[in-house]
């Protein structure tokens, strides 16, 4: 049974691509055959974050246009078994995405036995984003604890309930909230929206909270998903997210400020 999951946010820069890469890597690490598709045609990024940019020959648009076989365009990750990437085109524009072609490619991926198809949506609510969400079975809506990001996430949730294949046939898309770049210290000072503020407005279940961390930037630059170095809090947070996504109960972490013990206060 394949599941198409869109990672969307509306607003740019909140962590869609980071989330797509880490969740795809995490699912693959757990033994699920997973592909991450970059829908951000023209601004190819996902391959960089997953460290396979030098191996891109053909891309998603080539496959849609019938210029390349899906098998040749798919890039197999060298570190994680079961992880594949279908990169975006850097040169085409987003009009190259049309529902028929996208649907055909997704069906073909399902036929190849992919359990999870992670669609990394571009920012905005234009065609690229609509294509990324159109065939989704589930959605991970990424937001930062900040007013405009939450407003955009709300907009995206509205679109998910209206402009998708499932909505058109009267079904709903199961949507999860992922709150990224969260800083409990700032929330405490009232400088950031709290988890409960965001949940009250969006009204969807919380998949997890990813703390603000330098590790995200470092791992992007290295092309290694943060989840692979499980000593960092970001990796721990993403691991929790993957477990919850797979249906396991995990207590929410990283919401409250870490209490520093006397030792850490003196030496930390």
């Amino acid at each position, binding site marked *: 049974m394949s599941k198409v999951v869109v990672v969307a946010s509306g607003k740019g820069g909140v962590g869609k691509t980071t989330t797509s890469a880490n969740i795809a890597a995490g699912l693959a690490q757990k033994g699920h055959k997973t592909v991450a598709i970059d829908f951000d045609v023209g601004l190819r990024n996902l391959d960089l974050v997953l460290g396979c940019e030098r191996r891109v020959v053909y891309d998603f648009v080539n496959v849609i246009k019938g210029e390349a076989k899906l098998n040749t365009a798919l890039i197999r990750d060298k570190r994680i078994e079961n992880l594949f990437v279908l990169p975006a085109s850097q040169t085409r524009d987003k009009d190259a995405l049309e529902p028929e072609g996208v649907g055909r490619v997704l069906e073909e991926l399902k036929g190849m036995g992919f359990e999870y198809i992670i669609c990394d949506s571009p920012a905005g609510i234009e065609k690229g984003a609509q294509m990324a969400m159109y065939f989704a079975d589930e959605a991970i809506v990424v937001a930062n604890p900040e007013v405009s990001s939450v*407003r*955009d996430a*709300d*907009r995206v*949730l*509205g*679109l998910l*309930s*209206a*402009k998708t294949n499932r*909505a058109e046939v009267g079904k709903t898309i199961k949507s999860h909230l992922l709150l990224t770049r969260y800083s409990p210290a700032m929330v405490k000072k009232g400088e950031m929206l709290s988890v409960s503020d965001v949940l*009250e*407005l969006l*009204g969807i279940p919380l998949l997890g909270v990813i703390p603000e961390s330098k590790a995200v930037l470092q791992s992007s630059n290295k092309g290694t998903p943060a989840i692979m170095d499980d000593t960092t809090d970001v990796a721990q947070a993403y691991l929790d997210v993957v477990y919850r996504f797979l249906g396991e109960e995990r207590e929410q972490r990283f919401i409250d400020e870490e209490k520093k013990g006397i030792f850490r206060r003196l030496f930390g």
Partner: protein
Amino acid sequence: MEALIDSSGAAAPRSAAKPDAFELKGVMTSLAVLRLFSLDLMLMERQLRIKIAHLPQFFQDAPVVLDLGGLALGGAEVTFGPLIRLLRECHLVPVAITNASEAGRANAVAEGLGVMPYRATRNATRAAVTVPRGEPAPQAAPGEITRVVRAPSRTAPADDRRTPIRTIAVEDMPTPAPVVAPAPVAPPAAPAPRVARGARPAMVVRQPVRSGQVIYAEQSDLIVLGPVNPGGEVIADGNVHLYGLTRGRVIAGAQGYGEAQIFCQRLEAELVGVAGAFMMAEDIPAKRRGKSARISSVDGACRIEDL
């Protein structure tokens, strides 16, 4: 009538009590409205028969109201005799006209037709403030509540101007109090109340109304069970009842129904409007924010009171 004249001679016991000859009741019912675009009777008959052939039971002896608003002179030029005969031959029973000019109305009354107050339907102009932006609300698209039955489209030629009958619309129209014969002199068509109270059930929205969504309850009340988020918009021609936290925009009485009100459990709205009177968030007194409220329009201004 025969029941009253008892031929057997035996005095009916109830005749002593002088039973009422009739009971006068106002009822709401659905009527087919035939909107005319041409007076070419031959063309009309041909197309009418095709449409009836698709739904013969539906049209058998069905009373129809003739909407003359689509004719150039509002029916002034209509010779009703042949038109009525044509409709009767098609087993339709023309009972009244609506949306007619003064002259058209006089013609119709002279031919024994009643006059129905014209009520704006879905094609009517919406209030200027309700410009739906972006995507229509999914769960309750405008028009969903308007039960317009379009005649089978396959038979309808594409060019509307050559089509005398474009739609046969079944609508909830308030029927005037029934009279025995077609009203000899119908009361002058007073402007119908914009919102026929009780004519339509309220629209109920269970999902949250999210940023960018617009819900419009045409010709009815609107009940929103979940929150209305910032950037979301809920509009009704009647009242609006809000049970969740309301942070978006709310408009009641969008077509000018002055008695409309907004009932709100928790008011944090960006904007409220009733029958053309508006109040922005910054004008809502601080003590009203976050509380339950009832908002009405008084002398062209919004008034907020305790619920």
